């Protein structure tokens, strides 16, 4: 698993549930990894297990459904200024953003070739409904995308309804300019670095 992904998941858990919870999750992950005879990769402080394992392990400890935690992770990612900015580059309004999510795996691949984001197919349904279809083998991505979309609708100031149906995320846009969106200028690199 890419270390960037592991770090993002660890930061998300630390941010949301505190350092103590994160250490508990890592300890539990390492225990499982050892009993499965999988060696630790990440050195003394890190976690040797993959991100796919960290979240389910955390979900057990937190007594939450894992999908819920993946959704929270998606929303948390969109709230990171550096990541929010990269996402905002993809569309000038929320609808444009949702449509261009088809390009997201390609964009991610361009920056980090090892990062495998599953294919996202965007279909327009009647009216203002868009359906984002992911492979059924990637339910964690579907959940994460739903969380990310909710946060980004907020970011664009759009009123929308985001639902998960199986491996599909359904986005209903009711009001594109419901509220003032958060500020985004192309030249925000320095501001983003400062807030990091």
């Amino acid at each position: 698993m890419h270390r960037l992904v592991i770090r993002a998941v660890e930061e998300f858990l630390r941010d949301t549930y505190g350092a103590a919870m994160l250490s508990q999750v890592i300890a539990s992950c390492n225990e499982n990894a050892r009993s499965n005879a999988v060696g630790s990769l990440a050195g003394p402080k890190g976690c040797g297990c993959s991100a796919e394992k960290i979240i389910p392990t955390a979900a057990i400890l937190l007594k939450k459904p894992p999908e819920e935690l993946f959704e929270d992770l998606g929303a948390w990612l969109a709230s990171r200024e550096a990541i929010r900015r990269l996402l905002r580059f993809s569309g000038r309004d929320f609808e444009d953003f949702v449509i261009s999510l088809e390009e997201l795996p390609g964009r991610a691949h361009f920056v980090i070739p090892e990062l495998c984001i599953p294919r996202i197919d965007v279909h327009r349904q009647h009216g203002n409904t868009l359906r984002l279809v992911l492979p059924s083998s990637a339910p964690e991505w579907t959940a994460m995308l739903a969380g990310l979309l909710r946060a980004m609708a907020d970011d664009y100031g759009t009123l929308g309804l985001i639902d998960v149906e199986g491996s599909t995320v359904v986005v209903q846009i009711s009001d594109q300019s419901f509220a003032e969106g958060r500020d985004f200028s192309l030249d925000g690199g320095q501001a983003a670095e400062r807030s990091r």
Partner: protein
Amino acid sequence: MNAPGQDLVLIRAAMDSLLPMHLWIGLDGRVRSVGPTLRKLIGEGADDVGEVFLSGRAGATEDVVIAIRIAAARGERLFLRMQRSPHLNLRGHAVFANDRSVLVNLGFGIGLHDAVRVAGLTDDDFAPAELAMELLFMREAMGGVLGELKRFNSQLEAAREAAEVQAHTDALTGLCNRRGLELALNNALRPARGSGGAGRGRDGFALAHLDLDHFKQVNDQLGHAEGDRVLCHVAQVLRDVTRSDDTAARIGGDEFVLILKGLEDPATLDRLGKRMIEGIEAALCSQQNSCSVSASVGFVLSRFYRDLPAARMLSDADAALYRSKREGRGRVTILTEPPEDVT
């Protein structure tokens, strides 16, 4: 397939949309039209090309309008700087249009980010076919990823350093282990060798080999936990008699080695050895039992080993130690010359 005799005619709005960075110049050098994005860069009202632009080609001295017409005639790449922000070097090409006018299309090249900052450009200012948004995206994404990689790098470096220290440290006592000793001994021998006969006093050192007496009984009668406590006590005694550039190592169960820099006087070493033995004997003196612990010490001096391997120095120190053991334990032996080769 081009039908002969059919020329393309574009209305201004179409030009603005298709080429937001265009510049259309009449024969007189006056601006006939400017794309909306380029207009943001050069400002309103400017309509004399010579007042707005400079030739951006290195060493160019000719009039900018002439430079543009030459580029159009030769089909060459054109570089233009703006009088307002001369650090931005726009590049593009020029073609002849009707009435001997010239149409120029410009782009930002690698200065894109600066241009965005200077003119406050947005997504709408770029033609969809341009890769400007992708370039800006890449710039930020790469910056973020590089920052993270830098973090990982320093983490790995710190982990490597910690692992290296661990690899050279005896976990129980915190002294060096055998590997750490070998490294320190080779380092200590290097200057002693390099300096030849001179500088003996500065680079010379003594090597002490120390072995506990009656340690097995401590383990057998008082248990291993007490044995470990004695070993830690010994480590503390050795730390107390050594200075910061000396080395103290535990190389086996109850075997210790010291490298003592600049100490070559037998009388001083004898006193030091006896002090260590006294300190070690104090480990169990408070206990009301039959157990006692002491140590035997053997010293060798580096000046005899300038041309001999480190292993030989260690084995001779061991031989000196065993002479102490043979002669009744709890004592110090200093070899003032290397023993005869016993082969």
